[in-house]
C-alpha cells in the first residue's frame, strides 16, 4: 500500500521537476573514433520554468534536445521527464504538407488518444490560442513563415505535454516576426504553465525569454555557466536590463569560442 501511495503522490503536479538530467554524456562514432559531444550534463527544469540553453556551434544543443525528447539515448547518465513524452518544436515548421493547419493539430490529438468528436473543437481552441482562429482549413503552403511556426506551436501544445522543447524555433524568421513570436511564446507559456527548454545561439533571444540561461561550452558540450534572469515581463529586446545581461553573457560566450582557436 505504501508504495502505491508513493507512486500516486508522484502525480505530475507534485513532481518537483519537469525534466531531470543527471550526468548525461553522449558520444558518436566519428572519423577519429568515438567523439564526445555532450559531457556530464546535469540540469533540472522546474515545473513551469523557462530555461534557455545557449551555445555556439558544436555545443550539442540539438543533440541534447533529441535526448530529452527520447529520439535518441544518452551514452551514459539518465534523463527523467515525469510529465510524459515531451513536445518538440524544430527550426523548420515540420508541419505535414498533406494536411491542413487544423488537421495537423488534429493528428497530434489523435495520436495522443483524444476521442474523435473532441478533436475538432480542441484544434480550434489551440489555433485560437496562437491567434490563428479561422485558419483551420488553410494549407501549410498558404501560410507565412510566422504563421507556420505558430501552427507548429499549436501542434506541439496539442500533445498536452508538461514540457515543451524548442530547437531554435524562430531562427529562420525575419526580425519583426521573431520579435512578435517572442511575445506570443511568453504569453502562451504563462497561460499554459508549461515548462520550456529552449535552445538558441542568440544571446538576446535567450535573455528576453528565459528565467534561467544556461551556457554550454563547445566540443564537448559542457555546462559552462548559468544566469537567472530577474527582469520583469513584459520584456523587450531593446530593454537596458536585457541588453546589459546580454553583453555579459556574450563576453563569456566569446571566451568559450576563443578557447577553440588556441591549440
Amino acid at each position, binding site marked *: 500500500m505504501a508504495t502505491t501511495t508513493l507512486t500516486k503522490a508522484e502525480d505530475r503536479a507534485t513532481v518537483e521537476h519537469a525534466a531531470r538530467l543527471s550526468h548525461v554524456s553522449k558520444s558518436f562514432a566519428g572519423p577519429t573514433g568515438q567523439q564526445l559531444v555532450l559531457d556530464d550534463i546535469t540540469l533540472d527544469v522546474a515545473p513551469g520554468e523557462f530555461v534557455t540553453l545557449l551555445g555556439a556551434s558544436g555545443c550539442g544543443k540539438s543533440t541534447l534536445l533529441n535526448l530529452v*525528447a527520447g*529520439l535518441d539515448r544518452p551514452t551514459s547518465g539518465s534523463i527523467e521527464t515525469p510529465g510524459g*513524452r*515531451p*513536445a*518538440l518544436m*524544430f527550426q*523548420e515548421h*515540420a*508541419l*505535414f*504538407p*498533406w*494536411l491542413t493547419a487544423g488537421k495537423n493539430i488534429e*493528428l*497530434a490529438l*489523435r*495520436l*495522443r488518444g483524444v476521442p474523435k468528436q473532441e478533436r475538432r473543437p480542441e484544434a480550434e481552441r489551440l489555433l485560437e490560442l496562437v*491567434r*490563428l482562429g479561422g485558419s483551420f482549413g488553410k*494549407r*501549410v*503552403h*498558404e*501560410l*507565412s*513563415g*510566422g*504563421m507556420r511556426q505558430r501552427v507548429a506551436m499549436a*501542434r506541439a501544445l496539442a*500533445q498536452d505535454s508538461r514540457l515543451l522543447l524548442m530547437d531554435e524555433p524562430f531562427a529562420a524568421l525575419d526580425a*519583426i*516576426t521573431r520579435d*512578435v513570436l517572442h*511575445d*506570443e511564446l511568453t*504569453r502562451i507559456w504563462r497561460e499554459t504553465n508549461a515548462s520550456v527548454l529552449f535552445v538558441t545561439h542568440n544571446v538576446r533571444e535567450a535573455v528576453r525569454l528565459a528565467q534561467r540561461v544556461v551556457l554550454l561550452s563547445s566540443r564537448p558540450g559542457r555546462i559552462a555557466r548559468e544566469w537567472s534572469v530577474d527582469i520583469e515581463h*513584459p520584456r523587450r529586446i531593446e530593454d537596458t536590463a536585457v541588453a546589459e545581461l546580454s553583453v555579459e553573457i556574450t563576453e563569456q560566450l566569446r571566451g568559450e569560442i576563443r578557447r577553440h582557436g588556441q591549440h
Partner: protein
Amino acid sequence: MASTDTRTDDLAGLEAGLDALDAVQVRRTPVREILVGKVLPPLLAVVLVVVAWQLLVTAQVTEEYKLPPPSAVWDSAVDMWLQGTLLEVVWTSVSRGLLGFMMAVALGTPLGLLVARVKFVRSAIGPILSGLQSLPSVAWVAPAVIWLGLNDRMMYAVILLGAVPSIANGLVSGVDQVPPLVIRAGRTLGATGLRGTWHIVLPAALPGYLAGLKQGWAFSWRSLMAAEIIASSPDLGLGLGQLLENGRNNFDMPGIFLSILLILFVGIAIDLLIFSPLERWVLRSRGLLVRS
C-alpha cells in the same frame, strides 16, 4: 493591469497585420488560360501530323496498301462503330488492363513498403526489382502461356510481372524521399511503427507512389498489348492487340493503323482522365506545383 491589456491588444493587432502582409496568395488559373495554354497546343500538333500524313499519301511516296490515307483509317473506324464492335474491342482490353493494374497495385504496394522499410528485404530483392523494370514484359509471354495456357490468367500474369516492379519501385523512391524531419516530427507526436507508417510515411510518400502508379499503368497496358498480340485464341475474346494481329494477317493496313491509334488513344486517355488530375491535385494541395 490596463497596460498589460493594451499590450495584448497591440500584439494581436501587430500579428494580424504581419499575417495579412505575409499571407501567400493562391491564384486559380482561369478556364480560358487553360484552354489556350494546355488544350490548344496538343490539338494543333495532332492536326499537323494528320496534314503531314495526308501530304505524304498525296505525294505517293509509297504504295497505298503500305500507307493508307487518314480517311481510310477513319472509314474502318466508322465501319467498326456501325457493326458495334469498336467499343466492345476497346472495352475488352481496357477492362483487362484496369483489372490487372488493380491487382498489380494490391501486390506492388505492400511489396514496395516492405522493400522500403525492411533493410534485409531491400538488400535482398531491391536490385532485382529495379532490374525487372528494364525487362521487356514480352519476355514473360512465352513462359506464361506454357505455365497457364491461353487464357485470361496468362494475360493477368504478364500484366503483373510488368507492373508490380514499377509500382513497388515508385513507392520505394517515394518513401526514400520523405524528409527525415517529417519522420522525426511524427515520432515526437507518437507516430512510431505501424502508426508512423500509416499516418506519416505513406501520406508523405504519396507523390512518388503516384508517379509509380502512373508508370505502373503504362507498363500494364504495354504488357497486355504484348500478350494480346502474341497469344491469340478464339477463347480470349477480341481485344485491341488481337485486332492489330488480325489486321496483319489480313494485310489490312487501315485496320493496323486503327489498332495502333486506339492503343495509343486508350493509354493517353487513362493517363489524362485518371492519373494526371490525381497527381496535380496531390501536388497542388501540398504547394508543390509551381506555376511558371
